[in-house]
């Protein structure tokens, strides 16, 4: 069985970066950011129910280890002090109701507004989703 770090690299690291940050506008930073979401119950479940997380090619056990690595290691000091690690049972249940019928952008915006206003989260959370015309993909191969 692979380590949580290896599972992170193989399932998330390409886009999110080897250490949790790549292009902050295109891919949400995990490093020193993701822990803020655990201040809110809906934030804690959001992290698991995101489609690319819920539908990832991982077992419940591997995904739980991966998520705890992302939140508690990459998230660093942003995790609330009283936050408990995800359990396999919790992850197994949450990933069975993926967020497929909502606007993920709006849901995220509502949460980060609360996190910045009430939980002293960094306003860098707003970087993701800011459109930059210089980094539009093309098909010029």
């Amino acid at each position, binding site marked *: 069985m*692979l*380590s949580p770090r*290896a599972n992170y*690299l*193989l399932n998330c*690291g*390409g*886009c999110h*970066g*080897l250490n949790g940050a*790549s*292009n902050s506008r*295109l*891919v949400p930073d995990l490093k020193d950011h993701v822990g803020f979401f655990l201040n809110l119950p809906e934030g804690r479940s959001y992290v698991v129910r995101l489609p*690319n997380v819920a539908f990832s090619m991982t077992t419940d056990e591997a995904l739980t280890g991966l998520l705890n690595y992302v939140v508690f290691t990459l998230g660093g000091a942003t995790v609330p002090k009283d936050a408990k690690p995800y359990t396999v049972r919790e992850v197994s249940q949450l990933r069975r109701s993926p967020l497929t019928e909502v606007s993920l952008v709006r849901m995220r915006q509502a949460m980060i507004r609360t996190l910045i206003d009430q939980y002293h989260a960094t306003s860098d959370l707003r970087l993701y989703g800011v459109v930059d015309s*210089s*980094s*539009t*993909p*093309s*098909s*010029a*191969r």
Partner: protein
Amino acid sequence: MTSPFDKMSEQFTRNLARFSSRRGFLSKLGVALLAAPALPLLPVARTARAAEPKSVTPKTDFELHAQTTDDTKCNYWKYCGSDGVLCSCCGGGSHTCPAGAEPSPISWIGTCVSPEDGRSFVIAYRDCCGKPMCGASKSCWCDNTDREMPTYRSSLNNDIIWCFGSASATYHCSTAALVGEAK
């Protein structure tokens, strides 16, 4: 007239009949048959079995022909999922961009098996971007597919130009950076 041989064989048969029973023979044979599998194998047989490879994963076509010396060839071991023109043929290296091209911060990640020790390593397939496509010879054009997935698993697809996230989305060439061991 009976020969001495006849007498001897007759005596032997009579003794056999008198001192042994069929049931006794069968029970001894049964014990021997039952005990045989329980006895340890001869050391020779056990050593031979231990030498067999532990891995049961069949090698991919790429892995059967991979080499570790020439990174300007498509069968260089780290290129097991590479699709595109090799940066090592364009003035860069297997994991570095040629001058004037920029590595995309976003890539796809897979694994390749080292032919030297059979261990699996995490590979980040980063495209180099921001210059027109490199015009290297045909032998530098690769289309390997180990651990790559179809477009519906786009995060693991190698047909995508992995240049979004860098300043320019123009594709120049492909690299394969070793990130660490997959364990």
